[in-house]
């Protein structure tokens, strides 16, 4: 069942992005930034975690989960170290997405040649 909800929820988040592209005529960079901020705010009010329980990868694969996990890392450290933890814990949980993008980016640049 989680596969079905992953498909539906993930698809719906993409539809929200498409509406921002087409109806509000935002650039992809604007759209993605807004979605990330939305993810951070949703986690702040505690709505994102239940969504992950409900939809699995449907909530963790879209870019909104990036904002969610940034807040999560910050809050985890904040519980231990107070306000300083908000700054130091920021990348604790998110590291996979950014480091994977950078590592595979460099590997890709080494392996593949630009076209045209």
């Amino acid at each position, binding site marked *: 069942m989680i596969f079905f909800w*992953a*498909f539906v*929820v*993930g*698809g719906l*988040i*993409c*539809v929200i*992005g*498409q*509406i*921002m*592209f*087409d*109806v509000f005529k935002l650039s*992809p*960079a604007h*759209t*993605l*930034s807004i979605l*990330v*901020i939305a*993810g*951070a*705010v949703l*986690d*702040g009010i505690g709505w994102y975690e239940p969504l992950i329980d409900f*939809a*699995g*990868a*449907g909530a*963790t*694969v*879209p*870019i909104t*989960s*990036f*904002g969610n*996990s*940034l*807040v999560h890392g910050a*809050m985890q450290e*904040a519980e231990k170290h107070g*306000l300083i933890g*908000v700054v130091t814990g*920021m990348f604790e949980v998110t590291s*996979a*997405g950014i*480091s*994977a*993008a*950078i590592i*595979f*980016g*460099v590997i*890709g*640049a080494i*392996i*593949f040649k*630009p076209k045209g």
Partner: protein
Amino acid sequence: MGDKKKQKLQPNQQQYQAFQQKREIKRPIFKNCIKAFLIGGLICLIGQLISTFYIYQFNFTEKTAGNPTVATLIFITMLLTGFGVYDRIAQFAGAGSAVPVTGFGNAVISSAIEYRSEGFILGVGSNMLKLAGPVIVYGVFSAFIVALIKTILTQWGGF
């Protein structure tokens, strides 16, 4: 375009604006949304398959399986971007391929490959995060604000 900006334009410029708006191709919004839904849902479905695999094979939990899943998806994106397949998917799917984390990966990897001709430090290194930069910057900044408010409320306010 805002009304304030419009007032500053010359009459003929205003005419041109109106003309341009009339001639602008109407985007097939409903069709685009269906495409985005299908491809975006499919990418998340693949993500769910990968994280189920990690949960049963490597003893990850539901919560921790997100990280290796994202890394695996970005690895697949690297191959698709390198062979030029991802661009074709993106043309068809619009936001369906941009919103999932694979779109973030594609933005980083495609600019890394593109700027390779300018050298590895000044080309790849400095241009790699050009497209993905705003996402990281505003993600981190908004997360900072949210976490700050939450920490102050929970630790000092006693909620």
